[in-house]
């Protein structure tokens, strides 16, 4: 393995200096009705991409039922006071546009892209969906049926079961603990539940319009004012949720799936939000640990030991709280061996400074991927959404690469000690109890659940 890398290494030319980025012309303002607007000009192709975002999602209605914001978003695009579903699809085709609607834990969104010459009719449609969605009964029933199937399917997927359990363990009574509704909850959804969420969330004071593409900002702003300017509505009432307790001590949660062919490992601990000043440090430390393909964890348990195909670590930031997690689907017989290596690599980063060359590679990777991610209209839009939704400093994009480059081995060891909370990691394993229980129990006090979430003896 090592010799092969060296052979290839010989033929690779040295990296050139990182190029300067020409930052797009950006405008940040409000329409007369208070709607926040961000515009960025990016003219590679005669198109534009946009999102109308609402700062509320599934977490804000988790006390009613998780998934309620999601099904609301699904049904929003199926009809307005003026157009039925088929008409919407035909109109989109006629102007060469795509449109989708979705909701996450902390936001709901109408996302769209189209030819610049037809910007106004596309914005008109977005405006209609945001203000005059009709929630046709038949479309609602169809979406509910589909969601019911999805919810049933999810329960057969180890990745879902693992993340559902980990989120429960890490977030307890907080809405972030609930990742999906139960079948009963979905079956109980009524059209009125959706229209109530719609009235509450889809208001200009709660919204943010971001457009990126081939346009003159002044003209686009005028078009946005014309289309959205008369829309009115208040911000929904903010609901505070108490901070979840940070679980102490390693514990193991086994989700029993009889006859499972392999075991899904997912282990995690509390971390930080995007807004936290340590975000870039933790991002780089994670990239080196298990966030990139050539990271230590992948080289160890995939390339060297062959325990798993796709191990991965990530820093997951929700708006109010964040968590760090490590996942790997492994063969039954190497559950204990894989966990041992997962913790070995964590502890090694906490104990020993990272060699300069390895740090430089990780910096090049993270900085390079970031630059490439900005090069398309869609990529730039995604980054601007991240900045705005998380209320990051306005120079976040411009200064990100310098911040990554400035980090030293000392920063990384401090970050690993602070956030790779090895002693308090919560460990979820999803697999056949008979095959893995003794191995899993080596790592902490064990609780066993079934796929429906019921505690077993």
């Amino acid at each position, binding site marked *: 393995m090592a010799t092969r890398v060296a052979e290839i290494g010989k033929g690779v030319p040295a990296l050139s200096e990182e190029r300067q980025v020409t930052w797009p012309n950006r405008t940040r303002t409000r329409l007369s009705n208070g709607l926040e607007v961000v515009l960025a000009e990016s003219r*590679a*192709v*005669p*198109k534009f991409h946009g999102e109308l975002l609402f700062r509320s999602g599934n977490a804000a209605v988790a006390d009613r039922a998780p998934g309620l914001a999601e099904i609301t978003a699904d049904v929003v695009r199926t009809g307005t006071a003026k157009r039925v579903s088929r008409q919407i699809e035909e109109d989109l*085709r*006629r*102007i*060469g*546009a*795509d449109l989708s609607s979705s909701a996450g834990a902390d936001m709901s969104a109408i996302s769209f*892209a*189209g*030819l610049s010459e037809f910007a106004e009719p596309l914005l008109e449609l977005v405006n209609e969906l945001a203000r005059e969605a009709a929630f046709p009964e038949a479309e609602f029933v169809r979406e509910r049926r589909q969601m019911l199937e999805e919810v049933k399917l999810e329960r057969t997927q180890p990745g879902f079961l693992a993340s559902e359990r980990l989120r429960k363990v890490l977030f307890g009574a907080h809405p972030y603990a609930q990742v999906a509704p139960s079948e009963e909850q979905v079956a109980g959804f009524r059209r009125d539940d959706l229209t109530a969420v719609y009235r509450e969330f889809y208001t200009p004071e709660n919204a943010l319009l971001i457009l990126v593409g081939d346009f003159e900002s002044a003209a686009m702003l005028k078009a946005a004012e014309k289309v959205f300017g008369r829309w009115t509505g208040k911000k929904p009432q903010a609901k505070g949720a108490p901070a979840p307790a940070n679980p102490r001590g390693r514990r193991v949660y086994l989700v029993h799936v009889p006859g499972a062919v392999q075991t899904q490992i997912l282990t995690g601990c509390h971390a930080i939000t995007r807004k936290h000043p340590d975000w870039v440090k933790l991002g780089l430390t994670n990239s080196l640990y298990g966030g990139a393909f050539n990271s230590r964890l992948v080289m160890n348990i995939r390339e060297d030991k062959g325990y798993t195909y796709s191990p991965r670590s990530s820093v997951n930031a929700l708006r109010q709280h964040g968590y760090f997690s490590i996942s790997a689907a492994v063969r039954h017989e190497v559950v204990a061996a894989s966990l041992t290596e997962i913790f070995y690599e964590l502890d090694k980063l906490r104990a020993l400074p990272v060699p300069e060359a390895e740090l430089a590679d990780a910096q090049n990777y993270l900085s390079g*991927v970031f630059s*490439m*991610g900005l*090069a*398309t*209209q*869609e*990529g730039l839009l995604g980054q601007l959404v991240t900045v705005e939704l998380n209320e990051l400093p306005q120079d976040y994009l411009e200064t990100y690469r310098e911040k990554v480059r400035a980090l030293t081995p000392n920063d990384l060891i401090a970050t690993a000690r602070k956030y790779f909370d090895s002693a308090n990691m919560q460990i979820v394993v999803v697999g056949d109890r008979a095959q893995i229980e003794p191995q899993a129990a080596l790592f902490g006090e064990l609780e066993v659940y079934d796929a429906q979430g019921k505690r077993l003896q």
Partner: protein
Amino acid sequence: MKWQSDYYTLLEGGHGGVPRFGLMHLLACFTLFDGEPQLVNTVLDGFLAVKKEGIYAVAGKYLRTENRAIVFRKPANAIAKEAA
């Protein structure tokens, strides 16, 4: 219109995070197969010139019932039940 819009996205779009991969790919294909990389600038006109009759003619020629293959995917236990 939809084709035009999608074509621009293809040119700009990434492949595994590499921006402009679509444009590179088309340049490579037109150079390899046609020796004419500049086709990337005109190929769209050809698609936009397609008329309804042309689509009928092609569909009639290639999408024939006797050329059709249909695959049914069923769980093994459903097949066993049918056989019983």
